[in-house]
């Protein structure tokens, strides 16, 4: 500051000021001299009259320095004082603003974490994601595209005219790409492993895993936080088995105990040395926001860790996500052109249509973010909320400026320009919005916790400058949006002469306030219709007949691969667990199968019935003979599965009614046989069960085939279903104990009740219903308050009119009805306007609804009725007050 001031002193302006003031002093002295004063006295008097020269200089300099910023600072101080004088108004305004801004900040935070955040790697802009694009079937050398799962196909955006786009590669193809590395400094790969059993010092626990190429960390350009990370030397056949831990697993399981480095962990029974810990906050290369798995293993260890399904030993297994780091000077397009021939050569010899390589920027991960409809839908809901908040605060400001009219008039009368007052009022709005934005941070925190419950929206970015900028920008825009109209009105009104205050028409006020109420009602209708549709969807989904009884059922999964059991002992294991469960006091019956019903997943295979040319995709399960009994599913025709259906016995199956109709149209299903693609066996149908809900209650029961467990491949994980005799939650400890008694190292996965598992499938619908109901009710209340305020004000300003009408013979009832009718007219206007909005907005949710159309007249009618009821309630008090007006008093004093 002092350096700046010294500079300032030397300026020309300053010398001019000195000269100007000196000139003034000289003239004053000269006048005194002319009046006959002696010179010394004249100088003394002049100095005395002039006062402090330095103060005058300082004040003059300040006057020049007054800029827009100074005005802004002054306006802000004034705004804060003025808002502090009406704490009630300020509280209500800040609260509603914090709701609107906070909700949107939370959504932006989730959006930012998914769409904007980059992988926490060195120079993420140089990362390139590898994809391929190709026809659906038939590449020479590869049977199919391998393990491309449904969720992956959803995650990868498909392109027009092409059937399949994938983001996973087989090990030979990856090695070919890596060997050539044209245009790249590194090409590296990673694959999610399933859950693995991690046993350290005899204590076993399940953890998530990934398999990576040896240059994975090198490619990402990250360093270990403790010890070392994997290197290419760890990823060669015969290398010592090593693992690295994620930073969060290191602290969660080992409390950041660094002595763990160098110790041995058994991964599914395979001993490996812990060599180091990843840097904190590392994400999986699959997708930004997905945390790095608990343990990372070299691809060379994959066959040992999961011998039954080792993808690395299957040339046709496409399982590796591949990423590259561009070499300095090369471009994505150039790299794609030079690597595509390498890729094509690696995919097969000749013939057929082969996939081609597609390279994309990889800073957000290999997969696209599955935004789906969730984020756009939430953006619509929260946008409406913010709009409602703006309208609400604008309404509050309007009535506030009414009462401040005198103050504004005075300010303008003593010289403040219209623009100045306008800016002042707008500053007040922005200060209000800024306070709302600050309070909105708290709201945002709460709403974020709600949002991450949505499937797919599981990642909220860490707070960063983008979020701060978003909140700041949103607050500023919000402040301008709701402050603009009231400020224009206030300054316009004040610019008229004082004399016209009394004659001001109340019609204009009703016009603008009325329009705001219409908008509020309309937006409320949109939210209420949304809430109604989701509530009905949930009710409909809850009342679907699933074909089995979900009450008092506990489900969990065990996977023998975690304890390294071989085929023979596994079959034995399942039966021993089942019997141990049935021996429990609280357990009625226990069974198991390859999956529970309504688990959200499905398994399909192609069947060909004998004696016809049909070929159908059918849902298949292999189940223990007690499966139907435990789920209380009756056998309609023939028999159920039995203990006699062993591996050596003839192959049999039970099918559901839909399968019977689809596979054997017009024929009696019992005794019919069908063939399968993957073996030569002919399977005989021995029974028919009714249709049961399979993957989700939203879908009609598909054609289903149940194989006896003993005749199917059995080393897979099995899901147990346990029918308890009382509250299933109380039986869970007994169930856990019964399993551990059979094998103490066997982890129970996904232990829950059937009811809870089914409810979890409806998570998204429930969350949308919750959010739209909360905000719908809030919108309803604000609309009602807005209407109440408007009518109250109208009644006050029109007391005289009411008095005249009563003097002319209008009864109390007539007045009451007239005022109520005005409120209802506004509400009906809002409903009509909102209807158009609702019809447009609910199309967005069509795919999430069940058993109800987005234009369901019942729901829309109910929402409209609720609004009409609220408007009657809001209008009643002002109407009643108007009807009690004493005409004599009104005519003498009213306006």
């Amino acid at each position, binding site marked *: 500051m002092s350096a700046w001031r010294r500079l300032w002193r030397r300026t020309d302006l300053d010398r001019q000021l000195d000269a*100007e003031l000196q000139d003034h002093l000289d*003239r004053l002295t000269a006048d005194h001299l002319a009046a006959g004063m002696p010179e010394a006295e004249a100088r003394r008097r002049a100095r005395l009259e002039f*006062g402090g020269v330095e103060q*005058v200089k300082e*004040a003059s300099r300040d006057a020049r320095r007054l800029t827009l910023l100074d005005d802004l600072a002054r306006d802000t101080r004034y705004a804060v004082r003025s808002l502090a004088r009406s704490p009630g108004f300020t509280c209500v305004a800040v609260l509603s603003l914090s709701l609107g801004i906070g909700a949107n900040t939370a959504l932006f935070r989730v959006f930012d974490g998914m769409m904007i955040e980059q992988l926490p790697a060195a120079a993420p802009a140089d990362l390139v994601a590898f994809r391929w694009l190709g026809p659906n079937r038939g590449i020479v050398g590869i049977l199919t595209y391998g393990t491309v799962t449904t969720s992956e196909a959803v995650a990868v955006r498909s392109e027009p005219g092409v059937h399949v786009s994938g983001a996973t590669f087989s090990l030979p193809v990856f090695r070919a790409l890596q060997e050539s590395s044209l245009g790249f400094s590194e090409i590296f790969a990673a694959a999610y492993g399933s859950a693995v059993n991690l046993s350290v010092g005899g204590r076993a626990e399940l953890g998530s895993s990934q398999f990576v190429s040896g240059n994975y960390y090198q490619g990402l350009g990250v360093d270990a936080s403790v010890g070392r990370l994997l290197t290419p030397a760890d990823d060669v056949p015969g290398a010592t088995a090593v693992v690295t831990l994620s930073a969060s697993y290191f602290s969660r399981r080992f409390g950041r105990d660094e002595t763990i480095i160098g110790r041995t962990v058994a991964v599914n029974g395979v001993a490996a040395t812990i060599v180091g810990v990843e840097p904190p906050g590392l994400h999986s290369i699959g997708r930004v926001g997905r945390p790095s798995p608990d343990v990372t293993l070299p691809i060379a260890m994959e066959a040992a860790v999961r011998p039954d399904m080792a993808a690395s030993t299957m040339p046709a297994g496409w399982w590796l996500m591949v990423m590259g780091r561009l070499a300095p000077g090369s471009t994505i397009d150039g790299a794609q052109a030079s690597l595509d021939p390498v890729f094509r050569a690696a995919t097969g010899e000749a013939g057929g249509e082969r996939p081609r390589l597609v390279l994309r920027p990889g800073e957000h991960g290999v997969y696209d973010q599955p935004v789906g409809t969730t984020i756009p839908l939430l953006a619509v809901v929260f946008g409406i909320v913010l709009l409602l908040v703006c309208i609400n605060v604008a309404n509050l400001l309007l009535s506030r400026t009414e009462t401040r009219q005198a103050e504004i008039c005075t300010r303008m009368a003593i010289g403040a320009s219209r623009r100045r007052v306008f800016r002042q009022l707008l500053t007040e709005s922005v200060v209000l919005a800024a306070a709302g934005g600050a309070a909105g941070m708290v709201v945002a925190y709460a709403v974020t916790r709600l949002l991450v419950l949505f499937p797919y929206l599981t990642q909220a970015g860490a707070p960063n400058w983008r979020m701060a900028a978003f909140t700041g920008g949103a607050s500023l825009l919000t402040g301008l949006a709701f402050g603009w109209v009231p400020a224009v009105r206030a300054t316009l009104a004040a610019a008229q002469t*004082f004399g016209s205050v009394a004659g001001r028409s109340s019609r204009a006020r009703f016009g603008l306030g009325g329009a705001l109420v219409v908008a509020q009602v309309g937006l409320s209708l949109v939210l209420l219709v949304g809430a109604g549709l989701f509530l009905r969807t949930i009710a409909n989904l809850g009342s679907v007949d699933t074909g089995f009884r979900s009450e008092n059922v506990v489900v969990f999964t065990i996977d023998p691969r975690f304890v390294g059991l071989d085929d023979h002992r596994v079959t034995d294991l399942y039966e021993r667990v089942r019997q141990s469960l049935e021996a429990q006091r609280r357990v009625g019956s226990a069974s198991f199968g390859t999956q529970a019903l309504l688990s959200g997943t499905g398994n399909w295979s192609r069947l060909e019935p004998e004696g016809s040319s049909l070929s159908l995709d059918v849902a298949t399960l292999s189940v223990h003979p007690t499966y139907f009994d435990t789920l209380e599913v009756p056998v309609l025709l023939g028999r159920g599965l039995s203990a006699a259906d062993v591996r050596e016995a003839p192959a049999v199956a039970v099918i559901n009614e839909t399968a019977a109709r689809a596979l054997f149209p017009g024929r009696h299903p019992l005794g019919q046989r069908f063939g399968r693609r993957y073996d030569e066996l002919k399977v005989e149908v021995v029974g028919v069960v009714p249709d049961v809900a399979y993957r989700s209650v939203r879908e009609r029961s598909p054609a289903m085939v149940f194989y006896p467990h003993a005749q199917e491949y059995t080393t897979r994980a099995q899901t147990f279903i346990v029918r308890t005799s009382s509250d299933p939650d109380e039986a869970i400890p007994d169930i856990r104990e019964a399993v551990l008694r059979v094998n103490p190292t066997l982890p129970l996965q996904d232990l829950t009740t059937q009811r809870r598992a089914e409810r979890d499938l409806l998570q998204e619908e429930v969350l949308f219903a919750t959010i739209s109901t909360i905000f719908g009710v809030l919108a309803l209340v604000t609309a009602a308050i807005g209407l109440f305020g408007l009518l109250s004000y109208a009644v006050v300003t029109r007391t005289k009119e009411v008095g005249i009408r009563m003097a002319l013979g209008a009864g109390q009832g007539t007045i009451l009805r007239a005022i109520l009718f005005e409120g209802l007219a506004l509400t009906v206007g809002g409903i009509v306007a909102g209807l158009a909005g609702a019809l447009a907005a609910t199309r967005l949710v069509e795919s999430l609804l069940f058993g109800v159309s987005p234009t369901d007249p019942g729901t829309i009618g109910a929402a409209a009725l609720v609004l009409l009821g609220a408007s009657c309630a809001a209008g009643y008090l002002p109407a009643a007050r108007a009807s009690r007006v004493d005409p004599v008093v009104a005519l003498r004093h009213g306006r």
Partner: protein
Amino acid sequence: VAPPRSDLPQGTLDLLILQVVALGAVHGYGIAQRLQQISRDVLQVQQGSLYPALHRLEHRGYLTASWKASDTGRDAKFYRLTPKGRAQLKEETASWARLTEAIQLVLQAAGSGTR
């Protein structure tokens, strides 16, 4: 015998300065003298507020200043009104008239009310 002097209501100094300068180019001392003369010695302007006001008005573009030779033989800083300043003067005069009229009305009404 000097008449009692009145303090200027806040915000009116700018209006008075603009009015004086509107009569012709004048330096700071001249403005102070002119105000005192025209108001028959009722209004006296302190230099502590005159010069900041002049500089503020110049900064806002209502006044423009130039150094010219003056009667003392030295250069003095003369202020003139800009077109913007003239518009501002008109607006402020009108708003002042409104205010005084309103105050007058209130005073008269209140006066007649006290019977």
